[in-house]
């Protein structure tokens, strides 16, 4: 692993929705293999930051680089760059008219032009990895929320991504299903995949994060290792946030 290799670079990112400033000058570097967990109160801009990284939101100002490619203002390369970034959504966003297997093979086949049999082999490999290969022929609506989210993770992994983005992957799940998804994510983190995770699961942050980023009011307030962040947060707003969520 090349410690100086920058996977994601966000430079002075600003995003406005009308008059609302969602991101107010964010700078962020993520190195290869790093697991970054972004936390913060709702409306702090953490999801917007994640969605700017693969340009689901167009930044108002600033630059985003993925490896050595600039993604902002680079419409022509956008789809190619996106195909190298896996994204997992809060509401899974599986394709309901396709089987689990088709969900995982479709993008491989039409974006990366991989032949069907090969795409299916890749898909089965990743479905096994998330422990759901036996549901390959099912439709998403026949699965539980936790199973659907694991399929969504397999779908993203099948893109052979350089980066995995997780946008509150467990927030829409029933409590008993959160663990099965977090376990999969922990495994991925241990395998050295570059991950940026927006979550409210502090246990996951402690266990898997190389660094925790705390955001509020569209700014990065604090960036620290989980050990430091959870035991001695430097900033007053971090302390207030932690005391609110850890108090009970």
């Amino acid at each position: 692993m090349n410690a100086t290799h920058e996977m994601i670079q966000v430079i002075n990112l600003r995003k406005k929705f009308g008059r609302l400033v969602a991101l107010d000058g964010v700078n962020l570097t993520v190195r290869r293999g790093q697991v970054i967990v972004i936390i913060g109160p709702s409306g702090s801009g953490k999801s917007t930051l994640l969605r700017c990284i693969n340009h689901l939101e167009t930044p108002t100002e600033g630059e985003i680089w993925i490896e050595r490619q600039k993604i902002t203002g680079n419409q022509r390369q956008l789809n190619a760059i996106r195909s190298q970034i896996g994204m997992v959504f809060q509401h899974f966003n599986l394709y309901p008219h396709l089987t689990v297997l088709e969900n995982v093979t479709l993008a491989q086949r039409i974006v990366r032009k991989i032949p069907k049999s090969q795409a299916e082999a890749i898909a089965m490999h990743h479905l096994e990895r998330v422990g759901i290969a036996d549901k390959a022929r099912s439709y998403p609506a026949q699965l539980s929320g936790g199973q659907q989210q694991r399929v969504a993770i397999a779908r993203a992994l099948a893109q052979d991504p350089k980066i995995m983005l997780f946008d509150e992957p467990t927030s829409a799940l029933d409590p008993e299903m959160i663990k099965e998804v977090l376990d999969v994510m922990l495994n991925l983190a241990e395998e050295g995949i570059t991950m940026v995770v927006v979550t409210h699961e502090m246990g996951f942050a402690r266990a898997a994060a190389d660094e925790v980023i705390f955001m509020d009011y569209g700014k990065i307030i604090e960036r620290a290792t989980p050990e430091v962040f959870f035991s001695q947060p430097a900033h007053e707003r971090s302390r207030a946030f932690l005391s609110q969520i850890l108090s009970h």
Partner: protein
Amino acid sequence: MAVKETIEAKQQIASPQLTGAEIREKIRLFPWWTVGLIGVFVLTAHLILTRPSYQDAFNFIRAGVGVTVQTTLVAYGIALVLGLFTGLGRISHNVVIQNLGTLYVELIRGIPMLVLIFFIAFVGVPAGVGLLNQIGEWFSQIGLQLIAQPLIQLENSSVPMTTRAIIALSVTYGAFQAEIFRAGIQSIGRGQMEAARAQGMTHWQAMRFIILPQAIRNVLPALGNDFVSMLKDSSLVSVLAVRDITQIAKLYAGRSFQYQEAYVTLAVLYLMMTVVLSALVKWIERRVRQDERNA
């Protein structure tokens, strides 16, 4: 259809001995209207089989069924394509395309269908032919005689009324179906497009593989109802002297003075076609809903 489902469900649950309340409920839920409908068909069949005047009318008028069905089918097919592209245009981010689509839909919606049929047949088609002649002239000037000649030789008077009728029907229904497709596409959650784009698909790949398959399935019942409507509205093309069943019935009535026979036969013929088609639409609707439950 909901009524039928309820009845079926009740029948499965019901024990061999029905209580008075259950029998009353069954009687209340029974689709009596279908009995009335069948009665109309039986009565008409009886008239046709027993009365020579009805038999004559029926044999004469049924010759138009082919034209009615063919006109409807062809116009519907064209309207589907027109509607799909206009519907996509209505939600396009391109301002020009979006406004052109909206203008088309609003123009059509604001004009009565009968007037539109006259307008398209006697103003729209001649103007279109004139435009094609003009384009032919341009091709001729830049030396593309192969394309130019057929365009220049096109004459307004050589466009048959059946073709004009089909153009009129498809242009009109294209606007209605554009709204159906637009609503269908907009009914699919934003997350679907986002997931597809996040995987590196282009906007069109996402439309083609993710959005449209779901949207079209959702609007199948609406599209089916439009087909039934179009079959009925195809009677309007009789004003262009196209020999559909309405026109033929009119001719028959005018010639034989047997108005009752002609128009009873005509009405029942339409009714038979639409009842069968409606049943088909309901069947499709049920299938779609079942798929949703299982999927």
